[in-house]
């Protein structure tokens, strides 16, 4: 895990989550903007997955439980996909709120993953 990448990712996931929740509560159905923001959060998670798999090769090892780390990461990867399909099927404003809830959950899970990687065993 790379610290600056993680921080940027948490910031983007939080921003995307707040954006979707606000637009959803304003009554917007899922749009390219909110779907795109969620897709960006998902792509960054995939990047994080690649980074995390490769990092130990370069001597950047998790201090905490790898099992716990990957359960978080895989769960986080599933969230934008699940809610994204939901938003495609059900085009109401509540789907936009749900996209936001998923992005905010991802932000929290990333924070927790950072703790596991950098702090837990230290």
């Amino acid at each position, binding site marked *: 895990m790379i610290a600056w990448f993680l921080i940027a990712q948490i910031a983007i996931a939080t921003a995307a989550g707040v954006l979707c929740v606000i637009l959803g509560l304003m009554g917007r159905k899922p749009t390219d903007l909110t779907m795109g923001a969620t897709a960006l959060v998902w792509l960054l998670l995939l990047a994080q997955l690649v980074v995390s798999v490769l990092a130990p090769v370069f001597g950047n090892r998790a201090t905490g*439980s790898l*099992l*716990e780390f990957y*359960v*978080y990461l895989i*769960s986080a990867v*599933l*969230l934008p996909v*699940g*809610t994204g399909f*939901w938003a495609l*099927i*059900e*085009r*109401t*404003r*509540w*789907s936009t*709120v*749900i996209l936001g*809830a*998923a992005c905010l*959950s991802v932000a*929290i899970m990333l924070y927790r993953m950072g703790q596991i990687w950098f702090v837990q065993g230290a």
Partner: protein
Amino acid sequence: MIEVLRPRAVSRSRPRVRGIGRVLIAVYGVLALAATGRSFVQIVGKFDQAPLAYLLSALAAVVYIVATIALTQPGRIWHTVAWATISFEMLGVLVVGTLSLLDPGLFPHDTVWSMFGRGYLFIPLVIPVLGMIWLSRNPPEGPESNHTEPTHTEPTHTAPTPTAPTHGDA
């Protein structure tokens, strides 16, 4: 439980209530995922450290999954299942939360319900209440109407059509 009266005049706003129900289901889904993930890690990784707490975690996870499914399904039976599981969660978070506060030694390892769900932003404490409110406002379908496609005409002499969270809100 007091049946919340929904006069016919309110029927205009019913889709909105239904819509909020979807958010409720989504949050339940996330909570079920979180509880399942945590109990999976605990049981695979360190089960022998605190078997009781980890079995409780697993039980909580299963109950959240069943509650999530029950909320998405129409019909009287699922409505009852949803009531049962959500009541169980409410009881669980109150009992385990109180015990973990009074005697931290009882639950040295975190469960979803320790400290009233503090590790989960207190969502486990809040969500059963919202679930109960939602269930009481959305009475179940009659057994007969389970398999009929709901029409968009307003019934004239029967009870208002159920608002169980089936598909097709938009």
